[in-house]
């Protein structure tokens, strides 16, 4: 018995060591980003590098705000990610509800169109989408940034999966009590779907905040760039100013790290909602 316990103990120690190494490997680059952001710019050209900064400074962040439209980029990211998230929550909940709980001519077809379109790579749509948005005169505008993102199919699939599990009896009871379709949806379905709505909201917001390809293509002026597209712009223009670049990266990463830490339980449980079971 004792040897078995010993064996288990040493096994756990080895596990902990392996886990810590793997976790550290992924964590060190993030640490390095933050440390570099607070260094004097000249110190990045020092070898061996300073692993722990001796004289941290805010200088890189200050020059970032002075030399760039950083405030505007942040505002754009908030506007785009916020609008897409709120609109997606409502539209996907409605569409998901209809597909999950209503039997009507074409309901299966809608479901299959939505689910199969999730396999289509972004590259397929961006070229025609760009021509279309250009024809609508929406290049370099919020409309061009926002509308195509709201059209993404994943949220509908996610809500449909969740709403299948809602009991039909409650919906029927509400209808018998005389509640109309929209009242039932608003007063019964939405409140019961809060966990799934939270998951969809958080994932959409993070995804939109981090999205790069479409903002890169659809924006032209610096004023309309989102944070990610703006960062890429700085990276292209001053590829060697590492302290400055890392300050920008840190500035763009911190809001999402805060979102992650505050909604941790949704992240660490949430992604499973949409998975096949």
């Amino acid at each position, binding site marked *: 018995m004792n040897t078995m316990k010993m064996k288990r103990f040493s096994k756990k120690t080895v596990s902990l060591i392996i886990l810590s190494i793997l976790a550290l490997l992924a*964590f060190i680059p993030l640490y390095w980003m933050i440390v570099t952001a607070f260094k004097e710019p000249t110190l990045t050209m*020092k070898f*061996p590098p300073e692993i722990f900064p001796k004289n941290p400074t805010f200088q890189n962040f200050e020059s970032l705000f002075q030399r760039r439209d950083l405030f505007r980029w942040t505002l754009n990211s908030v506007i785009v990610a916020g609008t897409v998230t709120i609109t997606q929550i409502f539209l996907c909940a409605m569409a998901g509800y209809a597909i999950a709980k209503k039997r009507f*001519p074409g309901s299966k077809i809608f479901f299959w169109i939505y689910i199969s379109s999730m396999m289509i790579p972004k590259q397929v749509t961006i070229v025609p989408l760009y*021509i279309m948005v250009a024809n609508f005169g929406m290049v370099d505008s919020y409309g061009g940034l926002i509308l195509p993102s709201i059209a993404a199919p994943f949220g509908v699939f996610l809500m449909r999966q969740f709403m299948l599990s809602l009991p039909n009896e409650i919906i029927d009871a509400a209808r018998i009590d005389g509640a109309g379709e929209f009242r039932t949806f608003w007063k019964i379905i939405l409140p019961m779907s809060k966990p799934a709505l939270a998951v969809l909201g958080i994932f959409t917001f993070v995804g939109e905040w981090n999205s790069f390809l479409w903002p890169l293509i659809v924006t032209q002026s610096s004023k309309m760039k989102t944070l990610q597209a703006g960062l890429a712009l700085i990276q292209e223009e001053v590829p060697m100013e590492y302290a400055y670049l890392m300050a920008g990266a840190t500035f763009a990463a911190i809001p999402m790290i805060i979102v992650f830490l505050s909604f941790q339980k949704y992240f660490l449980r949430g992604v499973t909602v949409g998975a096949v079971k």
Partner: protein
Amino acid sequence: MNLLKSIWKNKAAYLFIMPHFALFLTFFLIPVGWGMYLSLFDYSVFSQEFIGFDNYKEIFSDNLFWKALGNTFLYTFGVVPLWLGKALLVTVLIYPFRKGIRTFFKAMFYLPHVSSTVIIAMIWLWVFNPNFGLLNFFMESVGLDPVVWLGNKATALPSLIMMQVIMGGGSTIVLLSAAMSSIPEYLFEAAEIEGASSWQIFRKITVPLLKPTILYSLVMGTIANFQTFSNIYIMTEGGPEFSTLTVAYLVYETAFKNYYLGLASAMSMIMFVILVALALIQFKWLSSNVEY
């Protein structure tokens, strides 16, 4: 007539679906169809001429496209198995610990996942810097020669694969852990009492029971990595000597740097067909050898 009646009776359902579906149709389905149509055109700034399958012919006789396709396969089949292996290893290793420790590690591995690919690429460009980068500092401290990671055509693509494996896997770990906690614990206990080794337990119990989740992660991971773009855009622009050129990056360059929009559409269609084929092969392969 009956159909119309039934549609009218269910008008509420259509009203619920329409707001999203209208946008989905306009900004997703129509572009997909239009993309297919565009791929048959010589569509650029100066001309819009129907040319049938000439774009496809041109792509298949273009060495650069084959190079990009080869790189994309190398990258995808380099990243996906390693990253899935890492996720499985972490999932199995954290399983016996108490909840607090499990959550801590899951959070640590998830953290890089909430930072954008642009940010991760910028950080690693700095880490890979041949003169002042963190990685060459480590190389020198253990007595190895510094490496020009991204500047050498032999090491550039493997460096990108390494970076992706080190930073990735967070969401897969969460997914696999959730699936693993639904396996009844007595299965593991019984196997252990019977004297099965950890490897046997892993092969005969864990992997077969996690199969649906592994399959899902495999297909999703393949789709995502096959479209690798941001890393390439920020870090290498396909170089040196096209050694990191991916199809997704080539589509971008063809469309938005050279404005050959028809040609780019044709490339994206080929990409789509390959992805569907890969997904079908994976489904077939994994569901054919289910053994309980």
